[in-house]
């Protein structure tokens, strides 16, 4: 099995606020991330696809195709956007790294038809990231 990874970067803003909690609770749990006008990050997304190389092309999948999928599904949706306000898939969720990674997985999984989506890793900054795998999806590579 080969695990192929492509990396993209996007910049977006977000705010952590749960309307079911009081302002004081929101502040206590989310701290600075609860500041009302939001704040932003440079996100780095690594998308790993698992598969066997095609005997003719030697490729698990054509990187051009993966690049186009990531452009269409992720960049156009999230780059230079406010994640709470402009990404419908995140409506009603706190846009943490964990939740954004899960949304990204769900956006990409059906679109990747050569090989199989294996891992989505989303970095909010170099010291914080979330990984998303299929449960029972084999090695945590």
């Amino acid at each position, binding site marked *: 099995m080969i695990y192929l990874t492509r990396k993209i970067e996007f910049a977006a803003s977000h705010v952590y606020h749960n309307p079911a909690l009081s302002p004081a609770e929101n502040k206590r749990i989310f701290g600075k991330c609860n500041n009302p006008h939001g704040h932003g990050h440079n996100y780095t997304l690594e998308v790993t696809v698992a598969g066997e190389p095609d005997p003719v092309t030697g490729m698990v999948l054509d990187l051009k195709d993966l690049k186009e999928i990531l452009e269409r599904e992720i960049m156009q949706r999230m780059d230079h956007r406010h994640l709470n306000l402009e990404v419908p898939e995140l409506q009603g*969720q706190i846009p943490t790294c964990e939740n954004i990674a899960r949304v990204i997985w769900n956006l990409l*999984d059906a679109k990747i038809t050569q090989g199989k989506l294996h891992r989505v890793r989303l970095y909010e900054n170099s010291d914080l990231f979330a*990984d*998303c795998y*299929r449960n029972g999806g084999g090695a945590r590579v």
Partner: protein
Amino acid sequence: MKPETLHIELGRRYRFSASHRLHSAKLGDEENGRIYGKCNNPHGHGHNYTVEIRVSGGIDPATGMISNLADLDAFVHEQVIEPFDHRYLNEEVPAFQNAVPTTEILCMEIFERLKSFPHAKLEAVRVEETANNSFEYAGN
């Protein structure tokens, strides 16, 4: 795809600086010198270590988080960063009084110290001794 069909981990990176000396009490001086080379120099040497940990668990719908970062950071600081940072590992960390503080063993020691984190399951510890060498341990 329903969320429960996915496995999600939170990753976090921390740093500490410490010195160590690779020297096995089970080997003679010449053997130690041959095996460990510069790392056997008698007064030790140091590294800037990076510790990357991954934890898993359900995402709390109220917070969107597997674990509150403040809780995780406080635990890692208390268990690892405080006792290791700016220390001589051989002398100041009890586990290394009888074990060679290679980064393999260090990685396992950090895993042992963090596996009781109460708010999420520790999946793996990866230690970068330098930008070029890293070691990962998942508890088995």
